């Protein structure tokens, strides 16, 4: 870290008075983190059966195979050590601190989903739109897949902001706890629509001597029903592409007729089958949930994975991995609601150009590289954790 900062400071330029630059920002952050854990309310179901891991700014999991008998015992350690990252196992073990892994005696694991905003042009300062999009995906995962399709009770699902670019969903349901990697892959593939052959839900049928194009009914379960409901929604919204699929004009009369047909699984004349197939394939991305990269998928598949402890501090942003109830997620704003430190103002010097960033109900940036600025503590901590600024004493 010091080496990285050193090179950054050189980039900023010689004219900056580095005598004033406070380099022991790690100590500053550690002090804040220790203070946070002294008053934080952390809940961990079956804490005594889980493995814990702590991380530093350089490595998210530096030490693992740790075990705490109770949450209180763990919280005392957090106050003492003030780790930049705290992770715990999705898995339950008989001996969580035993090594090697086989000796832990795996008893089962929560079903975890890691949804991250895709890394794109907004770079290391994830923009509000990306965070909002991934929140939408998270809600869809929970409501349409976990609750509607898998029948998971709301009380067995907990959601938390990851502290970085997305959300973690934890399912603590006895039905899934013993599932292995292969079975979890089947679940992930279902949610992400992997292996989904849209055309397999449609076929040419014969009704009342007229050849028709048949498909899933609105009330059907699984992807069949999802496809039917998405098509119906788009017809109602007047989506020209979907109307073209049916080869009909958008009129109330046609809409009623198509609705009635779809209720019985009848879609249109067989003559439009090819158009239908193409159009339906394009809907796939709207229906499934994007579970992101292979790494994110691995979080679900790996039954001994360590995942960020809900309500712990994310050392890469200084934000808390805040638990969010499903009923509150709509209005949850991570850049305000996940702020863990906001006591007064702090003077910083930017080590790179900072774009405008929404923070704690206000805004920080834009800040030019090398510019000195007084920021709210939340903004300063965020930039410090992103290694984008230094503190000034």
């Amino acid at each position, binding site marked *: 870290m010091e080496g990285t900062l050193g090179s950054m400071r050189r980039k900023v330029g010689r004219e900056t008075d580095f005598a004033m630059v406070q380099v022991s920002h790690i100590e500053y952050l550690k002090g804040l983190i220790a203070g946070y854990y002294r008053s934080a309310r952390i809940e961990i179901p079956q804490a005594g059966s889980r493995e814990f891991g702590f991380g530093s700014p350089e490595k998210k999991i530096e030490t693992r195979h740790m075990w705490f008998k109770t949450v209180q015992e763990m919280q005392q350690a957090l106050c003492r050590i003030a780790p930049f990252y705290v992770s715990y196992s999705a898995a339950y073990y008989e001996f969580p601190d035993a090594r090697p892994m086989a000796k832990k005696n795996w008893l089962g694991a929560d079903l975890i989903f890691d949804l991250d905003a895709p890394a794109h042009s907004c770079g290391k300062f994830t923009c509000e739109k990306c965070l909002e999009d991934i929140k939408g995906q998270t809600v869809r995962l929970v409501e349409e897949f976990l609750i509607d399709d898998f029948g998971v009770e709301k009380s067995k699902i907990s959601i938390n902001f990851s502290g970085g670019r997305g959300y973690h969903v934890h399912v603590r349901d006895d039905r899934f706890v013993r599932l292995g990697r292969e*079975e979890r*892959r089947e679940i992930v593939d279902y949610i992400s629509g992997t292996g989904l052959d849209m055309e397999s839900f449609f076929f040419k049928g014969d009704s009342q001597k007229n050849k028709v194009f048949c498909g899933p009914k609105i009330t059907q379960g699984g992807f069949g029903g999802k496809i039917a409901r998405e098509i119906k929604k788009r017809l109602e919204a007047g989506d020209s592409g979907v109307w073209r699929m049916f080869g009909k004009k958008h009129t109330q009369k046609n809409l009623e007729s198509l609705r009635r047909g779809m209720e019985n699984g009848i879609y249109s004349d067989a003559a439009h089958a090819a158009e239908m197939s193409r159009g339906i394939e394009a809907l796939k991305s709207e229906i499934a949930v994007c579970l992101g990269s292979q790494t994110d998928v691995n979080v679900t598949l790996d039954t001994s994975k360590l995942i960020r402890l809900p309500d712990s501090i994310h050392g890469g942003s200084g934000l808390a991995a805040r638990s969010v109830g499903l009923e509150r997620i709509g209005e949850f704003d991570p850049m305000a609601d996940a702020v863990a430190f906001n006591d007064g103002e702090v003077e910083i010097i930017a080590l790179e150009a900072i774009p405008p960033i929404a923070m704690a109900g206000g805004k920080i940036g834009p800040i030019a590289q090398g510019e000195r600025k007084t920021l709210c503590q939340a903004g300063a901590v965020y930039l410090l954790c992103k290694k984008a600024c230094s503190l000034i004493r």
Partner: protein
Amino acid sequence: MEIEMHAKYPFLSDSKQFASSKNIGFSDLYLEAGAKRALAAIGERGEIPKFAPGGLESVVVGELAAYTICRMIVSTLANRYYINRLAVAESKRARGYLDYESDENLRVVAVDLGVGFEAQGPASGTYSKGHESFRMPLHDYVRFCPKTADYRLVRQDVAHGFVSGLKRERLTRVLEEAIRKRIESGMPVRGEFPQQIVRLAQKLKKLLPVQQVEVVKIPIGNYPPCIKKIISDLAASVNVPHTSRWALAVYLVSAGVTTEDIVKLFTTAPDFNEQTTRYQVEHVRSKAYRMPSCASMDSWGICIASCRCFNPLKFDLRVHGRNIRQHEEESGKGD
């Protein structure tokens, strides 16, 4: 539970209890029946004959004895390939009965295997004894569904924690998979076996076809990771899903490997049947199937690496290309 159920499904807990209550010994008759069952299961045909029904207790006890002794003999061989092959044969035999069972008998088997299901809709006229459509808890379905495209969760009617609209043959196929897994995980049977069992195992080994391991002469280093994985799984006697086997056959046929060599690769599959394999490989050859793209392989869960070759066959070309370039550079031709 009907007494014949023990003979049909000797792996059930009730059947085991029934067998222990009968104090079955190692009579010559039972030993011979056990050895025959083992040979039928892990020999060339891989098919265990059905017993003659009639409700006779002696027949049922004989079947249970044969099953128990067969497991001991195969365990003595200490080879995962034979164990997996026995599990496949036993589960297929059981499926042969399951297809004609009443809903109630299906339930007895399913409950013992830890699989739940419920009948849906009215009882059928075709199956006078029961229904034709069923639903199964999602978590049971994902544990035991066969790993083929038709059974993938993404293609099922999933709602409220159940997979619905499963036809009878699909339900029994899932139960077959649950039986295979139960038998596989319960073996090898541990313990000191009588000398007769050890002798029978030694005798049986001589009757079994010799396992071929080293086969294809194409440098395996040029195969893409997905194909290598299928081959190594087959070599380890893993029960590789149908789609993977088909993809492997298409790849090897396209790569110019002879039918003979391809068939040899499959000899270690637990359900290997030379005649069927040969027929299927020839079928792939005659139809000239095109190699599925990496995207298709990924959607079937076969892709294991990001080679970026778009098609597994192109991986070979890429490696060849790289090798040629390397060779040219080393020999100075590339300058």
